[in-house]
């Protein structure tokens, strides 16, 4: 029996570092935890997970699982949870876990909480804290059952420290022929990028609609990100206007990030966007409207025309880098 099962996400080449943060939550809960990996050809990825203090790394490795189709993945994960009699199924919030884990919860007939920020125990009763209303409020919630599914918000938990001892890797057996077969994976966008992952980068530069068009967005936001070796993000308005692809979107319904340095360019600071950046260590805002709400959360606010300020910033940083 393994009390907690942690679903680890990967991109077929390596583990998604963000998904490891759920392990930190697993460590806070009592009992043993196992890591669960689904996919195909997972040898190396599984090997990279043995030093995280789990009792075992479970691997469901089969061609039928080559793509993360929710009906198949949920079925297999539910089987694993039943086999190991796990009370808690954990993941880190992502489109992958949000697609699959609620389905898994219903298969297991248990409730689920999304975006857990913290867990508290008082007199044997556990309560969970999660954001609601685009993070403008924090709800403290308790569950009526002791079995549940939780997704942890990565920015609320540290990356887990690596353990000296290595744990075993075990193949999780299931009958692929009995898996549902009514969903088919067709294709996925492949966009190569030299820039760091938006959810992992130490520096993120985000752009809003005032960037006008794709070229200007890439020149200014991309240019500044590159000068800082950072990642690029965008507001919903910028993505809606076609300036940036959907996976750049940061906010309530996009990605939630907490880099060391966030720079928002031409971003007014709507609650829905702030929901995605509030926990950044340093927030810099460049906007020509002195009353923009983002200035209320910015560590440093620069009021001015971004079309002038940002090129100056890029030049100054590049010069600094040259002379350093």
């Amino acid at each position, binding site marked *: 029996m393994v009390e907690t099962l942690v679903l680890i996400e990967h991109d077929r080449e390596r583990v998604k570092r963000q998904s490891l943060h759920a392990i930190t939550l697993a460590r806070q809960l009592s009992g043993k935890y196992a890591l669960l990996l689904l996919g195909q050809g997972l040898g190396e990825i599984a090997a990279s997970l043995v030093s995280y203090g789990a009792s075992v790394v479970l691997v469901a490795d089969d061609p039928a699982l080559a793509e993360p189709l929710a009906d198949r993945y949920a079925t297999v994960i539910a089987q694993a949870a039943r086999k190991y009699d796990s009370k808690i199924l954990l993941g880190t919030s992502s489109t992958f876990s949000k*697609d699959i884990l609620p389905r898994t919860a219903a298969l297991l007939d248990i409730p689920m909480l999304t975006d857990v920020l913290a867990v508290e125990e008082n007199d044997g009763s556990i309560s969970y804290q999660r954001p609601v*209303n685009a993070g403008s409020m924090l709800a403290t919630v308790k*569950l*009526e059952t002791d079995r549940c599914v939780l997704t942890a918000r990565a920015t609320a938990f540290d990356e887990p420290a690596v353990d000296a001892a290595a744990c075993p890797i075990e193949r999780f057996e299931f009958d692929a022929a009995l898996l549902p077969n009514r969903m088919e994976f*067709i294709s996925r966008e492949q966009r190569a990028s030299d820039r760091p992952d938006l959810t992992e980068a130490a520096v993120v530069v985000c752009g809003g609609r005032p960037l006008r068009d794709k070229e200007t967005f890439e020149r200014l936001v991309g240019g500044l990100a590159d000068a800082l070796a950072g990642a690029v993000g965008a507001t919903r308005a910028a*993505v809606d206007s076609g300036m940036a692809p*959907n996976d750049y979107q940061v906010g309530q319904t996009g990605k939630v990030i907490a880099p060391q340095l966030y720079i928002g360019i031409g971003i007014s600071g709507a609650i829905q966007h702030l929901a995605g950046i509030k926990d950044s260590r*340093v927030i*810099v805002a460049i906007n020509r409207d002195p009353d923009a709400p983002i200035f209320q959360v910015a560590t440093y606010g620069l*009021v001015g025309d971004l079309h002038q300020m940002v090129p100056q910033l890029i030049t100054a940083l590049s010069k600094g880098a040259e002379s350093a």
Partner: protein
Amino acid sequence: MKILVSFKSVPDPNEAILAGAAASAAKSVINPFDEIAIEEALQIRERGDAVEIVAVTIGAPAVEEQVRAALAMGVDRAIRIDDSRVLDPYAVARILRAVVEKEMPQVVIMGKQAVDDDSNQVGQMLAALLGWPQATFVSKVEFLDNKTRARCTRETDAGLEVVAIDLPAVITTDLRLNQPRYVSLPGLIKARRRPIETLTCNELRVDVRPLTTVLSIANPPKRAAGTRVDSVEELIAKLRQEAKVL
């Protein structure tokens, strides 16, 4: 094809702008993502792929204003499941399963998440309870093979992904699927004459109790106020020397 659209009545996220001259308590609206779901169903019907759209919501009598808004947008029938409790996503999914079993749609469409609760679970849970395929965070839907399958583009963390799913299925909508039509005054007036069906959980023969309780709601800690800088040079200096992030 019959489409069932599920929607939730939520406090208006744009409240500040819309507090009217006779402003009072927080206004309620159809959850923006569910509005997109209703719009998608209407567009599917307009291009001839569906013949009937039924909208369903769960709530107290006060949510009938949102039900009328759905009728005013153009859905054929609207159902309110009378239940004033605060329901968690799993309870909602179990009630909706009973509605699906009664209405027997080929497609269930709903928003990916409610903007008050931000759970993003109901659609997926419903799909599991029904044993149906699901396509979540969808930004485009097309029907194939004589409407026995749907080809859906999904917005994921890694970019756009395309899947094809057999019908009947559950689809949850993302922001860029469409731009919902606004409710027109003629639509609103016509909608007043259309009936709203009311059902209880009893009549649906479903008895669920929420498994989640909210103990308290609090304001998150406020970020300390920052400072203004007057130039790019000053910004860089502060980032280097004070914040030490450069």
